[in-house]
């Protein structure tokens, strides 16, 4: 099987290189200002291009075989393959054996290449949407793919044979990765990372061929949204995994690897907003092109940071010196983007200019600037230790206190813009419309602030945590304003529909959303983001308690009492476990039973590795989070740490709302039903170009 896998990788490299080189030559040959050899008719160049496209499709099939070969080796415990020996063992759960595909560096690079080929496969199969632009995008994707396949065949080979005699058992999977979410989180994140290659390829292709109009944006809109959705889910699954497994009570530690996933998300979000400016007003073309270029480069940088180990991270699970390859690739991509931009920048002239500071356009511009500022800030913090070492000779730590201090004000400003932007009109907003749109949100904001202060959220009294309480108060207040603004938008639109159709308010809202899924799906996404902000702001009120517990001992935190029922040890094929059984009471009523656990993995490993299994009781108001920290070496009794984390569940609920909103935004708009025509009537007719957009209303002179 390893020989078959290696052969598949080599074959995929040949096919992809063919796709890139021959496809590139065919495009050049067929282009008006390119290698036009008069003796060769255009149809021949097109036929050559078609062979390149088919090679690209074949490379997907071959890479499927390569990925299958690695998974097969994991399932058959083929420890002659070094990668399998290092990341699997006989007793490993089959689901985690499958996950072994992406648990190490070589495997995750194979996953990158496989997902890229899958995206490329869909693109090449759907090439009729725009044959020439798709051909450009296909060649660019093939160029990216060649890099990853070269890496896989030369520097990070997943099928290399282990030296010496074949091991009886493998070293096993890192215990921290043996958690159900880790079977989904990395592929989700990679689907996000890799997916941004598609809009990047279309943008670069459109620029190279001086493609008129914004069609490339329409073609890639769904790609970008789906990719953004994958990245969002990947990031928050990672956060949920950290919360459930690492046992420190938090979900985001501003680790370099976490930062690496956040940066393309920030620029991708900015891109999703700013393309609307280009579609609607023909503005910000340079900006959009560079945003998608940067997003793609940041995804590659993210892979570099995760895999190369240039920056120390608690969860860079696979590290090796492949940095030089990535640096070279990033520099090459940047140079290609820069040169293409410089040669074609006259094609990106804006058609319109901003007319007012108080307009939807300027709110988008602010939103973009702030998202980009947040991204640069995170990048700066991530790379500062390297810079500091280069300048002063000593490394520094950029921990959570730094990022929180720097990013919270930026985050709050973004929250403010989330509410403000949709209330402003395109081009220019009148003072009257500002008053009409802002009065209700402002009233709700003031009311929320007052209620919270009365309820005890008073930064000036909170000596220990004045700063975080203050920011929370601001976040809750802004969230109230934004939610009011969103609800106002829905009810205002729905009441118009209700007047037109006579339906009730809920049906009118559904119809309104279906008529304009992108706009109202967007509002739902904003609502989800606000809910997430509320959950994050709740972190200011976290509490923790720790106690050495014996049978019958009670630990109190907030409204809860935890009574220790038993302390048990058990042995499983892969690990020994030590856990406490705690009965949870709220007041005098029994709530639930929690069993925080500490596992010590030994199967397949040279040394013991321990892992925390958190026991959690989650409610909308707060999570009760218990951790078995270990046993006191002197008394032998377990030490239990308990966190009371308010509003954490809101973060996960917010993510679910964001997912729902994105799905709604992906649904095509409800098309107006054609009506029987009389002379001069309006009628819904399909657009000439298959833009996947709403139908236009045209006037016909005669039926």
């Amino acid at each position: 099987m390893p020989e078959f896998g290696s052969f598949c990788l080599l074959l995929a490299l040949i096919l992809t290189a063919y796709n890139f080189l021959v496809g590139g030559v065919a495009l050049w040959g067929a282009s008006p200002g390119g290698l036009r050899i008069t003796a060769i008719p255009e149809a021949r160049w097109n036929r050559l291009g078609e062979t390149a496209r088919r090679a690209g499709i074949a490379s997907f099939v071959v890479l499927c075989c390569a990925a299958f070969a690695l998974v097969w080796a994991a399932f058959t415990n083929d420890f002659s393959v070094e990668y399998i020996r290092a990341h699997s063992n006989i007793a490993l759960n089959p689901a985690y054996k499958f996950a072994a595909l992406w648990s190490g560096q070589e495997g995750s690079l194979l996953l990158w290449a496989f997902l890229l080929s899958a995206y490329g496969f869909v693109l090449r199969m759907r090439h009729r949407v725009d044959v020439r632009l798709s051909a450009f995008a296909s060649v660019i994707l093939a160029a990216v793919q060649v890099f990853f396949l070269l890496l896989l065949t030369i520097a990070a080979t997943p099928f290399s044979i282990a030296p010496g005699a074949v091991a009886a058992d493998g070293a096993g999977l890192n215990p921290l990765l043996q958690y159900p979410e880790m079977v989904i989180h990395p592929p989700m994140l990679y689907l996000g990372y890799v997916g941004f290659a598609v809009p990047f390829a279309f943008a670069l292709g459109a620029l190279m061929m001086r493609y008129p109009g914004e069609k490339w944006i329409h073609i890639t809109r769904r790609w970008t949204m789906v990719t953004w959705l994958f990245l969002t889910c990947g990031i928050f699954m990672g956060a949920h995994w950290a919360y459930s497994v690492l046992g420190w009570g938090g979900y985001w530690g501003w680790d370099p690897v976490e930062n690496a996933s956040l940066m393309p998300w920030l620029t991708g979000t900015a891109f999703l907003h700013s393309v609307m400016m280009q579609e609607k007003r023909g503005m910000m073309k340079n900006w959009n092109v560079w945003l998608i270029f940067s997003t793609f480069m940041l995804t590659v940088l993210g892979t570099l940071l995760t895999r190369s180990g240039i920056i120390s991270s608690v969860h860079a699970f696979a590290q090796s010196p492949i940095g030089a390859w990535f640096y070279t690739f990033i520099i090459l991509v940047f140079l290609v983007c820069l040169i293409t931009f410089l040669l074609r920048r006259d094609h990106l002239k804006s058609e319109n200019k901003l007319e007012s500071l108080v307009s939807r356009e300027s709110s988008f511009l602010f939103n973009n600037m702030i998202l980009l500022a947040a991204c640069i800030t995170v990048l700066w913090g991530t790379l500062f230790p390297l810079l500091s070492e280069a300048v002063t000779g000593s490394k520094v730590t950029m921990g959570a206190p730094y990022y929180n201090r720097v990013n919270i004000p930026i985050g709050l400003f973004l929250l403010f813009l989330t509410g403000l932007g949709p209330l402003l009109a395109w081009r220019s907003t009148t003072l009257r419309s500002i008053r009409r749109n802002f009065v209700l949100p402002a009233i709700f904001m003031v009311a929320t602030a007052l209620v919270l202060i009365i309820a005890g959220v008073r930064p000036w009294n909170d000596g220990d945590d004045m700063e975080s309480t203050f920011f929370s108060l601001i976040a809750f207040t802004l969230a109230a304003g934004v939610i009011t603004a969103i609800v106002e938008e829905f009810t205002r639109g729905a009441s118009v529909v209700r007047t037109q159709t006579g339906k009730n308010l809920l049906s009118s809202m559904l119809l309104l959303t279906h008529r304009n899924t992108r706009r109202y799906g967007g509002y739902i996404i904003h609502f989800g983001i606000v809910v997430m902000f509320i959950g994050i702001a709740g972190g200011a009120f976290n509490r923790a308690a720790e106690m050495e517990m014996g049978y019958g001992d009670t630990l109190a935190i907030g409204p809860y009492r935890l009574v220790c029922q038993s302390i048990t040890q058990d042995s499983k094929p892969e690990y020994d476990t030590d856990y406490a059984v705690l009965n949870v009471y709220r007041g005098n009523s029994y709530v639930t039973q929690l069993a925080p656990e500490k596992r010590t993995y030994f199967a397949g490993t040279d040394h013991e590795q321990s892992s925390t299994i958190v026991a959690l009781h989650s409610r909308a108001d707060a999570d009760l989070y218990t951790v078995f920290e270990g046993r006191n070496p002197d008394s032998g009794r377990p030490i239990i740490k308990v966190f009371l984390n308010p509003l954490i569940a809101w973060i996960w609920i917010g993510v679910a709302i964001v997912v729902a909103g994105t799905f709604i935004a992906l649904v095509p708009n409800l098309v107006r039903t054609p009506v029987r025509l009389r002379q001069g009537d309006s009628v819904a007719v399909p657009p000439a170009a298959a833009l996947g957009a709403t139908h236009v209303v045209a006037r016909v002179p005669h039926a």
Partner: protein
Amino acid sequence: MRSLTQLRRSLHSPIFWARTLQIALLCVVTVVMLGAGKSRYDRLGHELMCSCGCAQILLECNHVGCPDSARMIGELHAQLDSGNSDTQVLQWFEAKYGATILAAPIRGGFDNAAWIVPAAIFILATLGTFGIVWLWKRRSLALAGTAGLGGDLAVPGDLNPQDAALRDRIRRETEY
């Protein structure tokens, strides 16, 4: 009834909104100025990393059997009891464990760049956006003045009418 009319009138007055903004700003400043800082132990404990290699904040390090956190917490208590200032306490830890023991770069000198750059980016981004909008608005007005057209109708010079019509149509069809 009369006061309601007055309130309605004042809602339309720019002076009312300017005063409301002033009061809001004053409230914010007051809130920021009020209150004591964090307790020293808690604050300083969150500005230090555990030296065991777990990459956790000292007071959040959660492994039992951690060879370092208990000792470091003891050292922190001792430093606080000795009457040293916050800076002196942090300097003491830095001298003993190296610069990476500090959770954020606060030693001055080049470390200041870590703080200045994000603030500068944030300010530049905000001011830059204002500047861009102002510049574009001025250009748009100038274009409208010379060509007798609104910015919205202006077509770039290199676009032929066919392309302009095509773009216009695409935009119409993607109206949302």
